[in-house]
């Protein structure tokens, strides 16, 4: 690919896919931007006048917005903490030689293949239901009053469900990283007098740091847009207790039929996601090129 000619040919050949991708991204983005400056409500058909920043000021001053931001952050951070810590511990466990290792590994990875809607429904109806759920039966067996998860702790319950889904992903990535750790290095540390905890802290954890970075980056992207789990369990309630930014945008555009405000919310979400991304890259991105 060195000559002028071949470079030009290469550009020509990749251009269809680049143009397609650009169109795919730019047209919806442009339309969203356009809608966000219109008064565009499906319940009031007719003229869609240009209203400037009105939709934005309406969306940003909505008390639900502040709650949604807090909930989004709590959800992302909560799931990240649970999956990274739990994933590391599970990876250590699965790295040990044991009988039935292959089957256990597949079982651990299985939740990742369950669709979010399905897993949330299973959790809602079979585990967390205060009348028929397994946890309710367990509580009754122990003589305790059943706990109504989605009424009393809606966000925590959703964090639990989403963590359950993402734990296998973290475990899988961290397990493969763990397996690339040179066993002689651990033995050397052992000879140097490092106990199991010191070995974990000084050898295993630094070795895993890069994999943990990858897990955090990838999961953050997906966790910012958690939606299905909220829709099928709490519908963002009670009140706004489990509404995140994605769900708020949905509620504006498809429950209140206010496309203009919904679009404004979408644009705000894009900007916030990019701010988070920049911070993440700054904070832990340097881990990747070391």
């Amino acid at each position, binding site marked *: 690919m060195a000559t002028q000619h071949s470079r030009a040919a290469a550009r020509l050949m990749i251009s269809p896919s680049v143009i397609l991708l650009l169109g795919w991204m730019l047209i919806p983005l442009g339309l969203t931007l356009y809608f966000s400056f219109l008064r565009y409500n499906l319940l009031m058909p007719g003229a869609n006048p240009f209203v400037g920043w009105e939709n934005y000021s309406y969306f940003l001053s909505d008390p639900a917005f502040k709650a949604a931001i807090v909930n989004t952050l709590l959800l992302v951070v909560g799931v990240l903490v649970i999956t990274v810590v739990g994933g590391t511990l599970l990876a250590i466990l699965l790295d040990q030689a044991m009988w039935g290792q292959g089957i256990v590994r597949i079982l651990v990875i299985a939740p990742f293949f369950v669709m979010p809607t399905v897993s949330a429904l299973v959790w809602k109806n079979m585990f967390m239901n205060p009348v028929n759920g397994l946890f309710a039966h367990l509580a009754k067996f122990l003589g305790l009053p059943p706990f109504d998860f989605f009424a009393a702790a809606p966000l925590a319950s959703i964090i639990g469900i989403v963590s359950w889904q993402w734990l296998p992903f973290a475990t899988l990535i961290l397990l493969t990283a763990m397996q690339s750790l040179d066993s*002689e290095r651990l033995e050397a540390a*052992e*000879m140097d*007098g490092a106990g199991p905890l010191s070995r974990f802290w*000084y050898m295993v954890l630094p070795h895993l740091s890069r994999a943990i970075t990858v897990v955090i980056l990838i999961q953050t992207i997906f966790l910012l847009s958690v939606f299905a789990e909220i829709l099928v369990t709490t519908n963002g309630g009670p009140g706004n207790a489990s509404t995140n930014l994605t769900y708020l945008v949905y509620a504006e555009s498809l429950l209140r039929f206010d496309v203009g405000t919904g679009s404004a919310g979408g644009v705000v979400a894009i900007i916030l996601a990019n701010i988070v991304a920049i911070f993440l890259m700054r904070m832990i991105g340097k881990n990747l090129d070391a």
Partner: protein
Amino acid sequence: MGRITLDKVRKAFGDVEVIPPLDLTIEEGEFVVFVGPSGCGKSTLLRLIAGLEDVSSGEIRIDGQNATDLPPAKRRLAMVFQSYALYPHMTVRKNIAFPLKMAGLDQAAQDKKVEGAASVLNLTDYLERRPGQLSGGQRQRVAIGRAIVREPAAFLFDEPLSNLDAALRVGMRMEISELHERLKTTMIYVTHDQVEAMTMADKIVVLRAGNIEQVGSPLELYRAPRNVFVAGFIGSPKMNLIDGEEAAKRNAHTIGIRPEHITPSPDAGTWEGTVGVAEHLGSDTFFHVHLPGREEPMTVRAGGEVSLHHGDKIFLTPDETQLHRFDAQGLRI
């Protein structure tokens, strides 16, 4: 400090006995080399001493104290691994200081010892670098540095030079011997390279399939190998081993003769053959001589200035006083 005794030490992985019961004493301050072909159990034996593997039965004593069930860290042994096993995320300084940090030494004492070890090993300029930025020989020295700061009762080396190129290997061999002279600490060194064994050891332990074939000083092993295996393994180029008629003439099942104990001559001698490949080393020349009725060529040492060529006729005369004779079991007569 540093006397290690193995008493009927046995190791089995499942049903496979890797090391049958074995007795060995390593004296204080000795440089002992375990040598043998790949898979002879020499590394396993070292790991048993280090405590990285559990013995199946028997007892390991270090300075008279039973160490069989002690964890590796409590045995006061330091090990240098084949891959060096440096900690890539730490600087050289932190690598060397790691065992001290684990022992709970304060920062000042750590620094002092690290500086000391670094100056001994010429690493002072590299203390702030990471292992990834060092050459093979420097990494090797860092691994040794990490071992010496602990002031162990004995050093264990597991094929430490096998990842280095030939020139560096010779240099590091000297450095390790030098280090042993200076520290006077017991060292146990595992290698498959008999040249390393011959040049470095006070005592060589030749192993085959977990069994000790012979223990002795390099020259003892060279001059009086106890059996055919040791005879063939020690010495480079290898000893010529001859079975059959020629051996029977000398009342043996097998006879062995080293390349330097054969006199080549162009016109008269005991055996007649043709010259094959000649290896000119400058000081010496090694001829591979094909004798009729023998598959393997005989190796013969001659001076540097011999003019014999491929295909020439040659006569060989063994020095009868330097012949090694072995019986049908391969044992020395």
